[in-house]
């Protein structure tokens, strides 16, 4: 059973401390949602776990399947089964979705067996076709340059497609719901459902409750000022939808620290 364990994580961007002691544990098959207002460190947590060079870990730890995550380069974290769906996927002009995904699949195969000659073209084509059908994507999508000129919805769908092809064990979805209309949201949510069926652990970063109407979380956490200040079940999200974040702010100010 894959498990991601984050303990008292402190992270800086430059001189500024963004995460001030985050503790969280995610097991395969669970769906965790992290909610909270903008600028509280949700995306920082996602980027740090994946190893973006702009974020410095100043304290705490993260282990994944028993490995010290921060001692591994980004590509090894990915091959170990960690996935980050980007809030702002990066365009790679001139590189088609198919070529990119085949290179990514082959990198995985090669890491397991250095003599691997790569996935046979036909096998890959079938795999891609199947996943795209599942996500109701037009086959021509595979021939477009990755995220280059994609609409917001197309970018998010491409992220889910990558997840479906690479089959991670723990997936972090950073605001994957933002900028999606209802139809696109449904498709993305269906994609997540399929991952859940395959026993993937999901960390859903969002500040909208509406995503959680489609993807029911097992745990909901509220993040504020670099800490998780409140944790609960799915009903916590509904409570937030109704009452906003002010009651949590008040709780903190009254000295009842919701952390832990």
């Amino acid at each position, binding site marked *: 059973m894959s498990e991601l364990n984050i303990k008292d994580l402190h992270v800086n961007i430059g001189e500024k401390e963004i995460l001030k002691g985050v503790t969280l544990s995610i097991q395969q098959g669970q769906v965790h949602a992290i909610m909270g207002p903008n600028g509280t460190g949700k995306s920082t947590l996602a980027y740090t776990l*994946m*190893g*973006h*060079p702009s974020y410095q870990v100043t304290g705490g730890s993260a282990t994944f399947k028993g490995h010290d995550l921060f001692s591994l*380069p*980004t*590509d090894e*974290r*990915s*091959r170990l089964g960690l*996935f*980050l769906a*980007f809030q702002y*996927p*990066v365009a*790679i*002009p*001139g*590189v088609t979705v198919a*070529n*990119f995904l085949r*290179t*990514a699949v082959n*990198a*995985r195969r090669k*890491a397991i067996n250095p003599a691997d000659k790569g996935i046979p073209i036909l096998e890959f084509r079938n795999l891609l076709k199947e996943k795209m059908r599942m996500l109701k994507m037009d086959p021509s999508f595979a021939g477009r*340059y990755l995220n280059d000129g994609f609409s917001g919805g197309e970018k998010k769908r491409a992220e889910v497609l*990558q997840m479906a092809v*690479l089959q991670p064990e723990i997936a972090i979805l950073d605001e994957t719901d933002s900028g999606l209309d209802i139809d696109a949201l449904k498709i993305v949510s269906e994609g997540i459902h399929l991952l859940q069926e395959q026993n993937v652990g999901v960390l859903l970063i969002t500040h909208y409750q509406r995503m959680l109407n489609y993807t029911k979380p097992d745990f909901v956490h509220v993040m504020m000022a670099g800490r998780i200040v409140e944790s609960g079940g799915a009903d916590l999200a509904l409570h937030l939808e109704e009452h906003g974040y002010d009651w949590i702010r008040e709780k903190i100010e009254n000295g009842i620290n919701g952390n832990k």
Partner: protein
Amino acid sequence: MTENSFIIHRKSRASGEVQSDLNITPVFTDTNPFVQQYRQKAWRRYLSLSIPDSSQEHWRRTNLRGIDFSTFKLAEPTENFQEQFPRIFDAPVAGKENGGTILLSPFDAKKNVAPQVQKKGIIFETLDSLKVTQPQIIEKVLSRIDHDKTAKFSALAGALGLQGILLYVPKNVRLELPLQSIFWAAGEGLLHSLQLFVYLEEGSSVTYVHESSSPNAGSSLSLHAALIDVYVGPDAHLNLVELQSWGENIVNFTSENVQVDRGGSVDWVFGALGSRLTKNVSNLSMIGAGATGKMSGFYFTDHVQHLDHDTQQNHLAPNTTSDLLFKGALTDNSRSVWQGMIYVSPEANKADGYQANRNLVLSKNARADSIPGLEILTDDVRCTHGATVGKIDEDQVFYLTSRGMPRDDAERLIVEGFFEPIMQRIPFEGVRKRFQNAIKEKMEHTRN
């Protein structure tokens, strides 16, 4: 310092530091007096000019002072040039389906042209054999050559370029299958020269692929001087693909003139991978109304290579169009120069010119200079240009590595994507493959 004061920098050349020139005495023994005259005139011009130095605008960024020209020797036919063409040419870049192939070495040629090509009246022949069989054609082509009076090395190619090819396509003759030639110049410390002539009569069309190459071995430099002259007649169309994969001991001076007449068009692909030093001057001139010229260049330099590409788009008639895109990547301690100019003459109303140069610098010691230029002498035109020198975007690397690709794979994919717009313009899988392999090789050794 007062406002009026200024400092004059003047590089003085110490005595005894005069640049050496070639130390050869060629003998011209052509039986055709026209050819004889052409070569002698070119040689006289060569002798009258000194080796270019950085005081000349076009040579400011390409310094020849480290090259001892007196060491280059004329190759002798008796020397063993029968070295087999490398296996790489077994699979010609234009593909197995072609109208004809000519393999050239400095004193030898192997020709294989399809009968249907000859039946159409197309001449695809080495200059050597033409001088004997079709002197009038040679005269027609040579009389066109208007040497740049300041270009020393194109004069050298004119004088010594015994080896070479003529492609002549008669009026309204169209050939679908590509024709290709390969110049394989083995040896060290030698002087190689080559002339290529392409002449398309009105309404004709053809595809021609030429590759220049040599073994990537040898420590002493060899010199290659080439002159390429192309005429695309009225309403004719030429696909021209040029690829140089010189060994890294070659100093390469190539001078190219492509003229497109009324309603004609050229689609010109230019790839540069090899040589120690290259100065390549290409002039693309739209000489007749409605002429169109498209030029797509790519280069990838490594080690201490220095590639200098000087391009000129001349709009000399109304309603002419030109479109130039050069893309390059650099690694190690290599250097590239691209200097481009769009010239629009007073007669060229409604000219539409575009030029762009994009560079991707992959190491901290590589350097790319990119200098666009416009010279427009009429009002009713549209000209745009752009030049960029950039590095690999770290956010792209992070994104790709987050999908499990090692950094090396991620960088290679980004570089391939960078060149993709140029690859799209290349009609031959073989050329694309050759370039993709070069990208891979050059990026691989950089890491080690």
